[in-house]
């Protein structure tokens, strides 16, 4: 594939020929660079971090369990309002978006996820999820960073991309490659007159320097990417509507990048505010609504562009929260909690079952599924990448995806 592109660029067309065809240059570059991009049609993972420690019990509600209602006199979700998933568990009333995805067979709720000896410090716990190392032997790199270092090749589009207002998370920390971090895809805008630039960069060179030709290939693909994104933005027919949330805006931009076949196979963003120690009712419902409506709009957008088969989205949080509400009508740091996976390939339904509120660990939900088994499933069964070198151990992939 590399040599095809190089031959094409170096000898195939003369500068005069390019101008004579009257081809619109960015379009020309789009076709050639696109066709040569090895990442086309590869499955994509979108990770949404829920920062602060999401209260799992009010998200995936064990509405039939008296122990739940007794523990949360003011915070408990009323069974009548909850969105039933089965006869034991229901989603928080504000999660209509997720309920719809569940009914369409696209959402899997993985309940009671955690790891042995749970850590209740934000900083430590988040690092554990980011490194997939419960002993935190080193914070040298993140689990996705390891993936990037192993899979990325010089000159290819970045393997992962961080699109968020926050700084690059430890999960994406690498030791070799770089992972771009942008707040906005305006970061991928090419300044100035693109046409003249594109022509002069792409024009064939009479050079034997492999390095120069390498640089040229990367530059051509850069310009092509920028052109694709601009092209997508301009004069588009009415797109799927997104709600007016920050997470929705980030996911919308990720959808555009996926549509543009920009290249990354992993996208990472976040939604914060889940550390609800006090007056939880004010913050939690709206956050869950932002999450589920934004993700639902994202998948509706992908579907409209026939891309929904290529994308799996996974959420996680650094811990759940205590079963008993506290004196401030909130909850404190806990342990086991749900993860959500939205995917065309998932078996759908519920994994992990209802929490056992009679057998707690220091007042917290015990985990039944180790998060590394979920990571393993996403790596092996969705991204088709061997999971053991990334996770540093044998973790049986959870039965998340249809085989």
């Amino acid at each position, binding site marked *: 594939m590399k040599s095809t592109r190089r031959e094409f660029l170096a000898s195939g067309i003369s*500068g005069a020929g390019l101008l004579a065809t009257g081809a619109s240059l960015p379009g020309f570059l789009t076709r050639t660079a696109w066709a040569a991009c090895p990442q086309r049609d590869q499955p994509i993972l979108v990770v949404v971090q829920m920062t602060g420690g999401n209260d799992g019990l009010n998200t995936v509600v064990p509405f039939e369990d008296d122990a739940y209602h007794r523990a949360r006199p003011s915070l408990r979700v009323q069974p009548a309002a909850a969105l039933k998933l089965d006869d034991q568990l229901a989603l928080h009333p504000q999660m209509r978006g997720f309920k719809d995805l569940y009914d369409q067979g696209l959402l899997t709720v993985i309940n009671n996820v955690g790891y042995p000896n749970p850590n209740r410090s934000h900083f430590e716990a988040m690092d554990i999820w980011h490194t997939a190392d419960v002993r935190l032997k080193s914070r040298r790199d993140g689990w996705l960073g390891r993936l990037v270092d192993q899979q990325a090749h010089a000159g*290819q589009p970045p393997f992962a991309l961080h699109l968020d207002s926050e700084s690059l998370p430890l999960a994406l920390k690498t030791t070799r490659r770089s992972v771009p971090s942008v707040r906005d895809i305006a970061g991928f805008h090419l*300044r100035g007159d693109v046409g003249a630039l594109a022509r002069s960069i792409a024009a064939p060179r009479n050079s034997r320097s492999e*390095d120069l030709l390498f640089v040229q290939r*990367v530059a051509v693909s850069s310009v092509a990417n920028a052109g694709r994104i601009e092209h997508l933005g301009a004069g588009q027919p009415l797109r799927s509507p997104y709600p007016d949330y920050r997470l929705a805006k980030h996911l919308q931009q990720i959808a555009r990048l996926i549509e543009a076949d920009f290249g990354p196979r992993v996208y990472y963003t976040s939604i914060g505010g889940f550390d609800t120690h006090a007056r939880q009712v004010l913050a939690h419902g709206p956050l869950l609504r932002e999450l589920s409506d934004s993700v639902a709009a994202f998948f509706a957008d992908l579907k409209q562009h026939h891309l929904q088969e290529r994308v799996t989205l996974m959420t996680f949080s650094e811990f759940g929260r205590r079963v008993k509400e506290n004196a401030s009508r909130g909850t404190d740091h806990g342990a086991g909690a749900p993860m959500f996976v939205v995917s065309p390939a998932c078996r759908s339904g519920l994994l992990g079952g209802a929490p056992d509120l009679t057998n707690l660990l220091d007042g917290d939900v015990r985990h039944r599924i180790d998060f590394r088994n979920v990571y393993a499933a996403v790596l092996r069964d969705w991204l088709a990448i061997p999971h053991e070198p990334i996770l540093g151990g044998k973790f049986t992939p959870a039965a998340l995806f249809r085989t």
Partner: protein
Amino acid sequence: MTSLAPYKPTRANPWDRAHAAHLLRRSGFSPSESEILQALEQGPVQTVRGMLEPGRDSPSHDELDQLGRALAVRDNIESLRGWWLLRMCRTTRPLAARMSVFWHNHFATSNAKVRSAALMLQQLRTLERDGLGRFEDLLLAVARDPAMIIWLDAELNVKGRPNENFAREVLELFSLGVGNYSEHDIREAARAFTGWQQRAGRFRVNSLAHDDGTKKVFGQTGRFDGADVIRLAVERPACGRFLAGKLLREFLCPEPPPELVDALAAALRENHFDIANTLGVLLASEAMFDARYARARIKSPVELVVGMVRSLELHVPASALASASSQMGQRLFEPPSVKGWNGHREWLNSATMLVRLNTATQAVSAEFFEPRTLIERYELNDAGRYIEFAQNLTLDGRVPDALRRPLRALSGSPAEVLREALRLLLTSPEYQMA
């Protein structure tokens, strides 16, 4: 076969603009027109000698330099990053500035763990003070540097419970390279470094934690401490080869031929590992001006950003410099791992390349660049001269056919012709090569 024998200008291989600009670019950053003219006049020997002479920097550099302490005290690593880059833009000692970045990459200490701008500044000052001196002195100074002590967890290494990490990195990463020591050497060297600690940003040896017994390292026996181990390591032939390889990759080409590595290792030994004197040999050598090594390296983000500012004589705020370099993948004070930045092709992917292209466009935009400044300073009288000037300044006049026609076709006011010519040249693949 090329060698480290001194380059002597001949009619076939004269001292010309291209050679002068190449030397300045390799030993420092992309030069301004006046730097090129000065080097042309002085000739290669005098130019190299001038780079290596210790001396004062410019007033505008020094007044900026004094702000370092104040910035560090505020513990804002981002502003320290911008300050370092801005100093590189103003310095009249670009080789020293390049060597600071080289050593920063070599000793690869990251603020992500050290978490103190003051300590990172202190380490930088050590690299600047000792970076052109004898390598053994530099290595010892850095091994005792508090930021390094924290970075490599040297304090975990105590008598009776030696921790090998520090010793291993000193031998593997800093002096000898992988495999040029035995595990026994490492274990014994670890004992020699026990008790090396820092307190409140000052190095100390905790004598209670120091194992002062007899050790055997590299076949020699004695009651060695860390300084002794460093002396013994630098004496190993592997050290000369290891350093020579790194210096050649920085200043010559990504894959230097073994005979040049051996030759530069010999030069290091002959000069008692004095870095300035050894660089003097390399920068004035035939190899430096061998056509096969021209434009052989992909510029690092720092080289690219600082080079654009210096050659176009721009005034760019420190924060913009830091942001550009970081987004291109070189976040100073935070190398990605103990191995530093691998560089060359690994600088480039479609995202970092986009930043390079956008930065070039921005550099010549009205925000930072007033073309009339250069037009007046260098008395460029007509359109033909602007284009020639731009071609010479950016690519030493060696412009590919692919660019010649679009450049000739430019029209408009003088300022706009110069601006657009520079833009096309600065965004060319050729410009990414040094």
